[in-house]
């Protein structure tokens, strides 16, 4: 399963992005930042990778501060 993970610098940005993405009916999930991406305890937003382009466009349009969008391949979830 291919997921995108949006990493943020602040939890305020996570909340802002979550609100905007849910309002636009994207299927997203709050997860702890995967261990392979960060050692500290951040919160990230996970989505199915095929929504990548639209999500990126919306975040940029709404000027949400995010650090990166990364691809995460997960087996069996």
């Amino acid at each position: 399963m291919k997921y995108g993970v949006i990493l943020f610098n602040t939890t305020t940005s996570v909340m802002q992005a979550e609100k905007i993405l849910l309002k636009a009916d994207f299927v997203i999930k709050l997860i702890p930042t995967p261990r392979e991406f960060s050692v500290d305890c951040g919160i990230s937003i996970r989505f199915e990778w095929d929504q990548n382009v639209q999500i990126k466009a919306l975040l940029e349009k709404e000027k949400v501060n995010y650090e990166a969008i990364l691809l995460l391949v997960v087996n069996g979830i």
Partner: protein
Amino acid sequence: METIDARDLACPEPVIRTKKALENSKDGILTVIVNSTEANENVQRFAKNQGCSVKAAEKNGVFTLEIHKTGQAPEMCQTKAVVMLIASDQLGVGDEALGQLLIAAFINTLPEAKTRPAKMLFINRGVMLTTEGSRVLDSLQKLESNGVQIFSCGTCLNHYQLKEKLKVGKVTNMYDTVDSLLNADNVIRI
């Protein structure tokens, strides 16, 4: 095969003796004798929750319970019963929005963890997580389909007028909640 005579013992002694005997059992077969319906139900429920099968026979008010650790779920027989008491829709005390964010990330991580709680009890504002509008419903549904028992407090659902909006698990009462907490090996309070 070991036999435990738990007749005339007050609750929760029959369950405690059954638990100890199961842990020490070499062949995984145990007979427990009790003489009250309460002890009969408690021991049976305990054994079944541990993933064991139970054959029960009653004669003149004396119950003979034959308990087998089943082949299909041997690991469950040894797993400690962890009960998670979720008494809030937030993780920790502080900024409300942060607390809600943290509990979502927490519950979304549980289906991927190596071990699972036996039960999750949602109390007070915790029921916001099991009802319509919760952002962790799919994770809770996944946990439930993996055998985690999910219960929401009926009084709390009524109080917040959410009884019709329950989306995952069952409704429970304070008796079962107290029972679950007292019979747990480990309680995690959120």
